[in-house]
């Protein structure tokens, strides 16, 4: 069975009309695929911090949200070429890229709100502020929750973590839509659509694995047990309440999975060793070539 590649220049190939149309409007050949200004993620936005918002607190909060997205994005990207199926490979990559986009906006917002959070770069480095935050901070300066730090485990464990993460983050982002800082509110409003899909994706797979074979169910329950101990830390960091439990209980009920014991928040404020290892890999190229242009 032959599947010819759709030709964007073919009049009949109307699925690509939208792209070409944007191309014409943007009038910029080099970056037509991105759809937005790629140089400055907050281009066109007034980044002045409103009077009734504490700039340092806002920056810290944006770092928490941005770092969680960045670290989980990096974890999900580890599935590239390793997922059970080509289609799931692309699905997980899409989710990783959504989160990377959120991280970029949030880190840029943090830097604009409080430039003091941006680490000093080697002399002459052209890295933008969000890259400086992502690639030139040490693990101790990251604000992410430990929930996103650990290794992926198998596909089932990845799904269990993604379900909990997307459910909590979606609830928080829905609330942030009316945050006093209009930039954070706009970032959250954009993220809601992405997170809704992530939750849907993870929820469907959670159900499928739970009701699939004996082996898939065994793996799902093991994965859930593995990620659950750090779940209270996630819920606390995002300050979410019963609205999250309602959603999770629905997924658990339809999947025939018993909600794990309400764990106590595991003590300690420090990051896990897994974060250092993840950052070592993620940051090595940028740090080896601080004057590089990407």
């Amino acid at each position: 069975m032959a599947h010819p590649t759709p030709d964007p220049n073919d009049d009949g190939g109307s699925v690509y009309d939208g792209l070409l149309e944007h191309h014409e409007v943007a009038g910029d050949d080099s970056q037509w695929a991105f759809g937005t200004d790629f140089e400055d993620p907050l281009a066109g936005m007034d980044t002045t911090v409103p009077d009734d918002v504490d700039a340092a607190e806002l920056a810290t909060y944006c770092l928490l949200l941005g770092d969680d997205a960045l670290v989980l994005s990096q974890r999900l990207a580890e599935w590239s070429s390793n997922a059970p199926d080509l289609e799931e490979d692309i699905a997980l990559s899409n989710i990783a890229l959504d989160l990377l986009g959120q991280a970029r906006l949030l880190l840029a917002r943090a830097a604009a709100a409080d430039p003091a959070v941006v680490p000093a770069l080697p002399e002459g480095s052209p890295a933008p502020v969000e890259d400086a935050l992502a690639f030139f901070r040490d693990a101790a300066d990251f604000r992410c929750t430990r929930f996103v730090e650990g290794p992926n485990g198998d596909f089932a464990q990845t799904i269990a973590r993604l379900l909990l993460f997307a459910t909590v983050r979606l609830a928080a982002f829905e609330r942030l839509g009316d945050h006093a800082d209009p930039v954070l509110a706009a970032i959250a409003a954009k993220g809601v659509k992405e997170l809704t899909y992530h939750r849907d994706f993870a929820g469907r797979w959670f159900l499928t694995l739970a009701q699939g074979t004996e082996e898939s169910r065994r793996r799902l329950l093991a994965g859930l047990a593995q990620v659950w101990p750090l779940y209270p830390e996630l819920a606390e960091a995002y300050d979410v309440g019963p609205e999250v439990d309602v959603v999770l209980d629905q997924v658990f009920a339809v999947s025939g999975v018993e909600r794990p014991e309400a764990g106590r928040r595991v003590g300690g404020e420090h990051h896990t060793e897994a974060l250092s290892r993840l950052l070592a890999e993620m940051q090595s190229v940028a740090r080896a070539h601080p004057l590089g242009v990407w």
Partner: protein
Amino acid sequence: MPETEWPLWEVFVRGKRGLNHVHVGSLHAADDEMAVRHARDVYTRRNEGVSIWVVRSTDVTASSPDEKDPMFAPSGDKVYRHPTFYAIPDDVPHM
């Protein structure tokens, strides 16, 4: 464990201003719903579409290449089947 592959689906996407769904390719999925999700992830990640159809590949009945001549050659020389073949009389308005 035996490796079993999910069945194949044909994917049709309708673009923002398109009136019809266009065949864009195929993919594997376990069921209808998963095929739609997979199509979203594989074929609309660059903002190509606003609507997706999926059809099991085995449900597509195709003409055979062997029949090409009897099927399609006879229509090759019937220019009079095109409306442009006919001269429009001067007194026909709105054409």
